[in-house]
């Protein structure tokens, strides 16, 4: 049997070279550095370092702050992901009922998407400012003894609120396009088959949105893990007492502010492994079930 042979040429490699170089310079090389760093212990002045095997990892995993941060990150991510997905879905379903085809509303509804996380954080900061923040005053006026600078729950409330607000619009747009991609006639057939609108939603609409939901789940978990950095950095900065430290923020805080490069690198390596595991899990076990 004769197989088609293409002439070996260097051209295709040239085409992908820019991408490869970018990945190598900005991802693989730093990742390698981080991994290398994570096995080193530096002296207090950063003049010499010593190879210490897994000591950084041991120190980290058994340290109270890291565990606390890990638990906080998981809960924070779950909360942000769930709330922003649920809220967006609710809005999208409502919007879909009234705007079959009307595009101008859509743009209005998604403007928050264009706001960068640090900007969202700054806006939030302003609203929760004890002196001039309307929300701060409002909550206190309503009888909630609110102070996110000293109360861990209140601080969490602030960053969850801002993170969700920022993310809802993205999710909304995806859900809305997902809903509009469902053929009208399928929904009509369902109307003839099933009387309860709620049941129709759970048996027809929601399953048909599953691919969108899965995609958004991945995006949102990533967002909650990594991109909320900007929001935290501009609002609580991990305060009070590290109660709002996500793992990513802690890497930054320990490495850049605390100058513990080895420990911070070890944390980022662990984070990398966690994300990798999560991604593999999502694609292996969930994705297979959502595509029809």
């Amino acid at each position: 049997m004769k197989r088609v042979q293409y002439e070996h040429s260097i051209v295709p490699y040239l085409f992908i070279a820019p991408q490869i170089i970018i990945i190598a310079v900005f991802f693989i090389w730093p990742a390698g550095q981080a991994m290398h760093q994570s096995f080193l212990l530096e002296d207090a002045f950063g003049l010499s370092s010593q190879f210490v095997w897994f000591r950084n990892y041991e120190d980290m995993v058994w340290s109270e702050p890291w565990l606390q941060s890990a638990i906080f990150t998981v809960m924070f991510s779950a909360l942000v992901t769930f709330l922003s997905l649920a809220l967006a879905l609710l809005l999208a379903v409502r919007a879909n009922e009234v705007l079959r085809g009307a595009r101008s509303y859509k743009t209005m509804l998604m403007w928050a998407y264009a706001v960068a996380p640090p900007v969202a954080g700054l806006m939030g900061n302003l609203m929760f400012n004890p002196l001039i923040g309307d929300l701060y005053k409002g909550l206190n006026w309503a009888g909630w003894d609110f102070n996110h600078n000293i109360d861990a729950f209140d601080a969490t409330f602030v960053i969850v609120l801002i993170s969700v607000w920022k993310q809802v619009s993205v999710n909304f747009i995806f859900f809305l396009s997902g809903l509009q991609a469902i053929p009208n006639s399928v929904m009509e057939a369902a109307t003839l088959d099933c009387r309860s609108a709620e049941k129709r939603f759970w048996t027809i609409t929601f399953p048909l949105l599953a691919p969108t939901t899965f995609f958004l789940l991945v995006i949102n978990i990533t967002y909650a893990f990594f991109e909320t950095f900007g929001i935290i950095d501009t609002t609580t900065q991990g305060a009070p007492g590290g109660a709002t430290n996500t793992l990513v923020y802690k890497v930054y805080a320990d490495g850049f502010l605390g100058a513990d490069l080895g420990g911070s690198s070890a944390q980022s390596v662990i984070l990398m492994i966690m994300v990798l595991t999560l991604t593999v899990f999502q694609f292996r076990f969930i994705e297979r079930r959502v595509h029809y």
Partner: protein
Amino acid sequence: MATLSLSDVNKRYDNGAHAVRGVDMEIADGEFIVFVGPSGCGKSTLLRMVAGLEAITEGEIAIDGRRINDVSPSECDVAMVFQNYALYPHMTVYRNMAYGLSNRKVPKTEIESIVRQAAATLRIEEFLDRKPHQLSGGQRQRVAMGRAIVRNPKVFLFDEPLSNLDAKLRVQMRIEIKRLQRSIGVTSIYVTHDQIEAMTLADRLAVISDGRIEQMGTPIELYETPATTFVASFIGSPAMNFLPARVADDGGSITLDEGPVLPIPAGALAAHAGRALTLGVRPEHLGEEGDDDPVASLEVELIEQLGADTLIYGRLAEGGEDLTVRLQGVRTLSPGDTLPIRAPWRHLHLFDAESGARISLG
């Protein structure tokens, strides 16, 4: 089993489109009604109003005497087969068919037997575990029908269910739909713009134009006595020939504009002397060889051999009007030949030149 009645039904969409204008209709139990008409005439809108999918702006629709204007679609007990099938893509064929029943709290074992029986009737048993995307168009079409029949509805609605199928499958499914409807005897409304489908399926046919019923009757009634030029041109293929004409002042003949004079039976048009007409003759009646004398001759321009029939396109030697003639069997003619034309009185249709309404000769 149900009767259906529409009285003075109107539909105005929010954008102002007046899609259905004052439709009245009585449909008997078990009748197969077909709506035909050109694209955009309001067929689907009317059907969807019966299904409860579209609000009724004015008028009333009743099933078995019960007004359904404000009844939710799932309660008026109609089933619909959609043009694009509208199967639930995430469910297996079995679940697609069972969905409506389980929502009506039919016991599981009963659902199982109903679905299996319907699947057997439609010959889709082997696909019950497949998802819709693993089926061919014809198979999906059957599933869509299965989903409709398991519910044992009072009324079946079809909106161009065969238009996505190839010609051969279409003929086959058409026959199956007819057989199925006969065997279960459900009152049905079928929308199409394919006039062969319309003629073959219908007990009665409603020709719709611009939101109004132009004429309603059996296929043969519509073929033989079309009420307007619109119906006449819509029913029958190839379409009827229309020629501008005038009744002679003495009422004794019909003169085609700058053309031949057609003799007519004495006194037949006495009351219409001098009236301007549109004369209609079907292609299949122009070449009939019989005792009538030829009244004109056709200059042949184009010939289509269909095997059983031959279609001849040409123009009248006298006057130059375009005409289509249909002759039975294979004919050896070539462009440039002339063909004698006969126009027997019994096959002439006379319409008012202005309104297009049929002139009935009592």
